[in-house]
């Protein structure tokens, strides 16, 4: 390619214009701002690095939310009073054994929730990466999904349990008296209503989870925060890459909030 023919972009032109000031360290505020933006976003198409990082963040968050929802709902059901105090006396050996197993699982669920909520996510991530998967080589994304998913499950469990408890007892009684099994009553009558009342709290949890994936930068998963780290290590900027990453997080969270708000309105309309 001929350098004389190739036209220079306007960004590079501005960059060249402020070069004397950069060398002499006499930048005005606006020139300084442009220098930071040029170095950390424009030069070498660095903005693509942020987008790649954002992609990883979204991927991890999405699967972690799925894991959290699935596991969290199971934990929540195990923690319900009627499951905790299950009693099958006089229904035979196998029913009794089943009841004992369920009680043990329920106890374990309680312990799990306490441990996962009682220790920092950062420590859990480090332990899962360097301890549990210490000598197993696997994709960091999977480790991220597992760590964030397991952590989120504990919070989701409490949210779902709160949602289930908020559904009137009469709903269960109505379902059972209509001849539905207790499983079907839970699936088709209680959980849908519980989901509606748990939605705002759940939205909160999703938002936290998306932001908490930034902790995965500690295990060098190149998500949005780490992408900023890598750019910073090359441009030697004090904090500009973090501002760019932060704006991207904000965009994602605001979009999610908007979508869930819409969903909530639709669910409210279905009340009538």
């Amino acid at each position, binding site marked *: 390619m001929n350098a004389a023919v190739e036209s220079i972009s306007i960004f590079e032109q501005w960059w060249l214009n402020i070069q004397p000031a*950069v*060398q002499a*360290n006499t930048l005005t505020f606006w020139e300084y701002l442009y220098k930071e933006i040029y170095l950390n976003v424009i*030069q*070498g*198409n*660095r903005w*693509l*690095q942020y987008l*790649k*990082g954002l992609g990883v963040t979204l991927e991890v968050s999405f*699967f972690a939310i*799925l894991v959290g929802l*699935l596991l969290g709902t199971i934990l929540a059901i195990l923690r319900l009073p009627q499951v905790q105090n299950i009693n099958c006396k006089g229904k035979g050996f196998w029913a009794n054994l089943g009841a004992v197993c369920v009680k043990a699982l329920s106890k374990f669920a309680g312990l799990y929730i306490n441990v996962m909520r009682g220790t920092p996510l950062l420590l859990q991530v480090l332990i899962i990466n*360097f301890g549990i998967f*210490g*000598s197993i*080589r*696997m*994709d960091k*994304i*999977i480790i991220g*999904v597992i760590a964030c998913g397991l952590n989120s499950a504990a919070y989701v469990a409490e949210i779902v349990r709160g949602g289930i408890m908020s559904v009137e007892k009469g709903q269960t009684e109505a379902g059972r008296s209509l001849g539905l099994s207790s499983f079907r009553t839970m699936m088709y009558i209680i959980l849908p209503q519980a989901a509606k009342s748990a939605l705002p709290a759940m939205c909160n949890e999703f938002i936290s989870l998306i932001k908490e994936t930034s902790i995965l930068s*500690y*295990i*060098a998963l*190149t998500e949005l925060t780490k*992408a900023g*780290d*890598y750019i*910073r*290590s*090359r*441009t*030697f900027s*004090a904090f500009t890459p973090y501002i760019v990453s932060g704006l991207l997080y904000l965009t994602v969270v605001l979009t999610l909030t908007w979508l869930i708000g819409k969903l909530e309105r639709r669910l409210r309309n279905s009340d009538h």
Partner: protein
Amino acid sequence: MKKFLALVAALVMTLSCTVAMADDIIYVATNPEYPPFESVADDGETIIGYEVDLLNAIAEKAGIEYKFESMQFASVVSSVQANPDTIGLSGISITPARQLEVNFSSPYINAGVAVIVKADSTIATIEDLAGKVIGVQLGTTSDFEAEKLVGIENVAQYNTFLEAVLDLQGNKIDAVFVDRPVGVEILANLNDPSLTMLDIEIVADYYGIAVNKNNTELLEKINAAIAELQKEGFFDELDMKYFNATGISVAAE
């Protein structure tokens, strides 16, 4: 329910496909936030720098295939210690404590621990550092030397040297211990006249490639390759390429 099961199955499959299969590739543990030795190129994936050029030359001579694994610097040596198929290449200084955990190749550069202070600071000699707060990167030779000199309570440990220098810029600490080539690179890029590097070397600091204790075969291959590269004058080329512009010369042993 069926749809849900299908979804779970799809999730499991996507996840399991990405699990890397073990083969005879060598994994290279590194912290790519350490220019000019290694940093992430503008495409966000490729790792470039002095040590990457060196690694490519060694890999060609020794006939090995490698793959980078990024991590925090403080995890590099322990990762090599735990995995026989992993080597550490991250500006790792050869120290007795680390030699208990891993084997080191013959040294290829003397980085030397230098001191960065504010230009108007009263610190001029090693003695002046007593009682001052020194910023370092966690787990580096600078960290160990600073601790020996001023005690652990006066050492501020950061994840990268850049963070330490930025805090020095903001007057939160009194001095930064840093490997000289890295310090020169940071000062050149920050272009801040209020920072200066003292003309003293705290300790000589030789970088080597960390190899698992059980993998002596690989260590021999690497050492043979380094010796050969030395004869060919490859290190002079590297010095020229990476350090000439900033005016420091680092002689390979």
